[in-house]
């Protein structure tokens, strides 16, 4: 098989695919997050089936596929947000820096500070722009005003929002436009300096210009963080992916280098989806 991309940085992953592992999975020597044989049931219905996937640091990993494929579920397992849901069952492991995040004694609130999440809809909390950004650090016990100001500016800058709101920090967060609100939510996650940033269709409610701004900020963010994103279209997936993982019906169908998956998918189902034959 011809690998069409020459600018790949994921050597380890390529060798894995070259070996032709039975379950098509990305693997790397030093993943930020390792998802290991993960299955998940909710209300007796299986939503993830034996997913094995490595998420590298300082890159954008795209989880894509038709609705109901388990992408969002997988994300919510990585920061243990699904702990809040009753009636679930999980097998397999999720490792963050080689440590099992579901091991007994893990501090869940600390884990969530390390693994930030941005949701499909902009969900500003009640309060001002500034209060939104420093919500997390405050809960974590940060009281120093100078430090909080510093965090506000840094986070908003990283989310490509600072220049637009620097004079409106004390206005209600809801007075911002939808696109600004979503970047505010990204900034809010960044305020905790997470190591992993999960973005669940962060641009689904946004106009094309706001979408472009959010996507631009991704290129900045991946210099510092492991970024995982569920895109809202195949086009977006192709634009931002360093690594792409295709999910269908709770299974990881194909995973590989972004350009390869979108231009020369190995699996027939991936190809059908990417070329728009279904989905």
């Amino acid at each position, binding site marked *: 098989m011809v690998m069409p991309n020459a600018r790949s940085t994921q050597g380890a992953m390529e060798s894995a695919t070259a070996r032709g592992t039975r379950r098509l999975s990305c693997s790397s020597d030093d993943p930020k997050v390792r998802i290991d044989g993960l299955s998940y049931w909710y209300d007796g219905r299986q939503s993830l089936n034996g997913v094995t996937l490595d998420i590298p640091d300082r890159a954008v990993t795209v989880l894509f596929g038709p609705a109901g494929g388990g992408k969002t579920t997988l994300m919510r397992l990585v*920061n243990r*947000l699904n702990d*809040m849901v*009753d009636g679930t069952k999980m097998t397999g492991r999720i490792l963050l820096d080689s440590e099992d995040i579901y091991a007994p004694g893990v501090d869940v*609130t*600390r884990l*969530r*500070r390390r693994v*930030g*999440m941005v*949701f499909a*809809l902009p*969900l500003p*909390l*009640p*309060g001002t722009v500034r209060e939104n950004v420093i*919500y*997390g650090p405050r*809960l*974590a016990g940060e009281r120093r005003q100078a430090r909080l100001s510093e965090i506000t500016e840094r986070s908003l800058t990283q989310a490509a929002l600072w220049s637009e709101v620097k004079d409106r920090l004390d206005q*209600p*967060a*809801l007075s911002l436009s939808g696109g600004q609100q979503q970047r505010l939510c990204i900034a*809010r*996650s960044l305020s*905790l300096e997470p190591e992993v940033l999960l973005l669940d269709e962060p641009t689904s409610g946004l106009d094309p210009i706001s979408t472009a701004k959010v996507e631009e900020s991704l290129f900045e963010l991946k210099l510092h963080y492991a970024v995982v994103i569920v895109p809202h279209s195949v086009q977006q997936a192709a634009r931002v992916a360093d690594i792409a993982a295709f999910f269908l019906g709770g299974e990881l169908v194909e995973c590989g280098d972004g350009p390869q998956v979108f231009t020369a998918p190995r699996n027939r189902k991936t190809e059908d989806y990417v070329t728009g034959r279904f989905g």
Partner: protein
Amino acid sequence: MNRALAQRLGFALLGLIAMVVVIPILLVIGVIVVRGIGAINWQFLSTMPYGGMKQGGILPAIIGTLLLTLGTAIVAVPIGVGGAVYLSEYARDTRLTRAIRLAIVNLAGIPSIVYGLFGLGMFVLFFRFGTSILAGSLTLAIMTLPVIISTSEEALRAVPQEFRTVSASLGGTRWQGIRTIVLPQALPGIITGVILGLLRAAGETAPILFTVAAFYLPRLPRSPLDQTMALPYHLYVISTQVPGMPLSVQYGTALVLLGLVLSLNIVASLIRRYFRSKRQW
């Protein structure tokens, strides 16, 4: 008959039905104001009764009702709101929580005289509080709890789930999310429930009958273990137990009770409007 006419007829009929709801309250207020306003003056509000309660004022009954309402609030608000937070935010759907909910619903359905008897047995006799403001407040508090709990729980549930999720995703503990987001957002609804419950307590006669109310006690209470007069009971007494009581005094007392309750209601609306204006969803 064409559709426009049918629509107009429908609206007229529904409007009429809505008016029927308004008429009784206007009549009640109207009659009491017209007949009672003559008895109201500063002396009536600020002095002790004398001459078999036919003369003087109703100060001890006013103060008594205010103290009882305050006592009820001190006991019922923390327990009620705390219970609502537990049920809405922490409790899973288990046999225990279902039993708790069932108890609350049933508590709301108990006739007030039964609370009075319970208060007599529990607080007056068993705990030896005697007939006292303490016993009366506790009895009224228990009666008020279901209202406070169910309205507060509803207000808490009305706060979008997403706020809790966002708070958790930013490393907040469950309690941090409740304290910083959920409770402030639910506050207007909680205040409504608290006031509704307290207003009912302020106007009740039966629960205080055996637990606190004094027939005739022309002095102000000095401790929570004192008896006191109270407006609803006083009204009952002068309307049924004292022959030859001037009608204007009866209606005057009713007017004061009504005024007290309505003004508390207005204060509550103002508080609620203030907090609601600060809410952003």
